[in-house]
């Protein structure tokens, strides 16, 4: 080497060769407590947590809640869990073809649903039975598509609760467009609490990977739309844990799209309520979107078709059982003296009755007449569909006693 050679740069590590090394770093399933940014008001035992940098902005909302509010949120949690358990049981009994359970996510959904006003609009995925409940959607309405008698079929505008969307991510853009419509109608920032409206868009942790989800964040940011993205991070997208979907948690992504993101303890109904209410208030006031990540857990299988023992360890479920949203709220109410045993018993009894009502409605849900499958394909008469419907009816009639 000549004397005037420049000091050689420190040797870079040898490039990683694909056939020698695993490309992905040693990422592991992150079983954390949600981190210091997570907004939380009640701990696992039901104790009210002190004010912290993470929760102080929302403390007033929680303090403004009455004991009656607390009791009725608890009631919602219990009833929603019962609706879900009944859905699961009905699937096992062959009354439903499939059921996606929300077990473990009750507080995330009730907290979000309860923060909405009548004129707000929800765009759910397929697991949002708890949000549906808070929107006063009769639980029976949710059963039809899982029984295979319809594709949803409810009137979304009756309760401002859109049809379930199964194709992951699609509804995020619908929600954004709906919110853009609210802006154009001038129903933002008027100060009239009965007029200003916002939209909530629900998806899961896996859903944050979809193009549609990310495009929705772009559109919502650009439009400053009155919209709350509500990501229930239940840690799993079927068999894939968080680290297969993202390197930073979803709430931190919002900033890059130009609006705030918040992580909330999804098993703490008061915290979810407070964070969602603040985000919705801001959206209705014209301050634009927020992304809320509710940090929670899918206690059950992905759906009744899934077998989680293939990919996750039971110990993880045990950890989360300790954080059960209902036990926690019950502990909070009891320790504060806001509710007594008689109240809890009455809620359980109401849940029993609701379950019986749902079961009966499901068992009695008739198969629609066969030619109904040709209905509503188009608004106006369509010759192909009309001809096929007529042929179908004639064909069916050709079988003695029906096919």
């Amino acid at each position, binding site marked *: 080497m000549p004397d005037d050679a420049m000091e050689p740069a420190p040797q870079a590590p040898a490039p990683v060769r694909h056939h020698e090394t695993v490309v992905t770093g040693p990422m592991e399933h992150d079983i954390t407590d949600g981190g210091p940014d997570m907004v939380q008001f009640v701990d696992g035992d039901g104790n009210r947590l002190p004010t912290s940098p993470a929760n102080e902005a929302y403390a007033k909302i929680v303090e403004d809640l009455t004991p009656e509010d607390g009791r009725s949120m608890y009631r919602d949690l219990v009833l929603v869990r019962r609706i879900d358990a009944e859905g699961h049981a009905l699937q096992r009994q062959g009354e439903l073809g499939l059921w996606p359970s929300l077990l473990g996510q009750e507080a995330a959904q009730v907290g979000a649903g309860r923060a909405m006003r009548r004129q707000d609009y929800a765009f759910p995925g397929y697991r949002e039975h708890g949000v549906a409940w808070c929107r006063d959607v009769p639980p029976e309405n949710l059963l039809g598509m899982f029984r295979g008698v319809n594709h949803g079929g409810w009137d979304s505008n009756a309760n401002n609760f859109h049809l379930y969307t199964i194709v992951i991510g699609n509804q995020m853009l619908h929600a954004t467009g709906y919110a853009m419509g609210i802006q154009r109608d001038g129903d933002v920032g008027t100060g009239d609490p009965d007029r200003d409206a916002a939209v909530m868009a629900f998806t899961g942790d896996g859903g944050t990977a979809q193009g549609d989800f990310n495009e929705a964040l772009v559109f919502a940011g650009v439009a400053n739309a009155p919209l709350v993205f509500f990501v229930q991070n239940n840690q799993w997208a*079927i068999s*894939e844990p968080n680290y297969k979907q993202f390197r930073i948690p979803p709430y931190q992504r919002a900033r890059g799209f130009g609006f705030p993101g918040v992580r909330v303890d999804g098993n703490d109904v008061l915290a979810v309520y407070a964070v969602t209410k603040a985000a919705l208030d801001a959206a209705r006031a014209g301050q634009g979107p927020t992304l809320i990540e509710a940090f929670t857990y899918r206690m059950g299988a992905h759906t009744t078709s899934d077998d989680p023992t293939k*990919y996750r360890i039971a110990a993880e479920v045990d950890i989360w059982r300790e954080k059960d949203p209902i036990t926690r709220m019950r502990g909070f109410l009891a320790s504060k003296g806001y509710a007594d045993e008689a109240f809890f018993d009455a809620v359980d009894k109401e849940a029993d009755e609701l379950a019986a009502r749902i079961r009966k409605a499901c068992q009695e849900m008739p198969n629609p007449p*066969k030619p109904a499958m040709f209905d509503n394909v188009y608004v106006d008469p369509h010759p192909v*569909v009309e001809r096929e419907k007529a042929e179908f009816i004639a*064909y069916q009639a050709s079988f003695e006693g029906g096919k």
Partner: protein
Amino acid sequence: MTAQKLSLAKGLNAGLRKAMEHDPKVVLMGEDVGKLGGVFRITEGLQKDFGEDRVIDTPLAESGIVGTAIGLALRGYRPVVEIQFDGFIYPAFDQIISQVSKMHARSLGHLRLPLVIRVPFGGGIGAVEHHSESNEAYFAHTAGLRVVTCADPADAYWMIQQAVASDDPVLFYEPKRRYHERAEVELDEDAGAPLPLNSARVARAGDDLTVLTYGPMVKTCLDAAGAAQGEGKSLEVIDLRSLSPLDTETIFTSVRKTGRCVVVHEAPTFLAMGAELAAQVQRECFYSLEAPVLRVGGYNIPYPPSRFEEDFLPDLDRILDSVDQALAF
């Protein structure tokens, strides 16, 4: 003899395993394909044996899956992509139509995209919406893509290997309601060369009428042919196997022999495979035809809720009804 009784699903699994052993550039990717082995377990055990580098649990984004598969292919890999269900391929539609199908032509032949896109398709499993669709015609309509479908375990085993070996991109349709049907599969190449990927197969020989079908309907049509036999009608059933290109020689030879043709598929009939087949058959077999080519398919409505699907999907009765119409012509 190395024949083994395998389900169609296991045939695919064994075929993928062989393809991966044969060529280290073969990588599998998709949602839940790794640890879980896919929701239908087609890739079961492959991540364990070939590593996370070669069996990739991707983020939940179909455009992302196909788009990155294109990049991997450009870098010399042979990606085999799983789309979890037929109805979830549409986010990737743009990548498939705009890029996958055209790359070879756009580059004047400099670039090849040897990728396979596996699609479990069709109904009959009582699923909720978007899980039972037959969207093969969209892709068969698009030049630059090969579109094939297996109907039995032996074809599953061999065709998936041939698809992986193809230097053209292949849409590989798997009849999900047949995944668990079992048959003897000869696993040894030397025991008789498998049919080429783009050949049709006479699944049952007959004289009176040709039934053209593929995928999940092959079994239904064979059952129908069995029933027709009892009534003295001899049906020839052709499993097309390849939808693009079509093995027209096998098709025309059969129709010229029988003089009658019924096409059967699950997809709604309007502008579907049956339309193309009917047009080609009437052009090429015009002087042999004794009856118009008839089509039996799904009705031209969105795939219905599962309680309707038995009536939506072609079944024995509907196939035989059309067979009778054609024979009575």
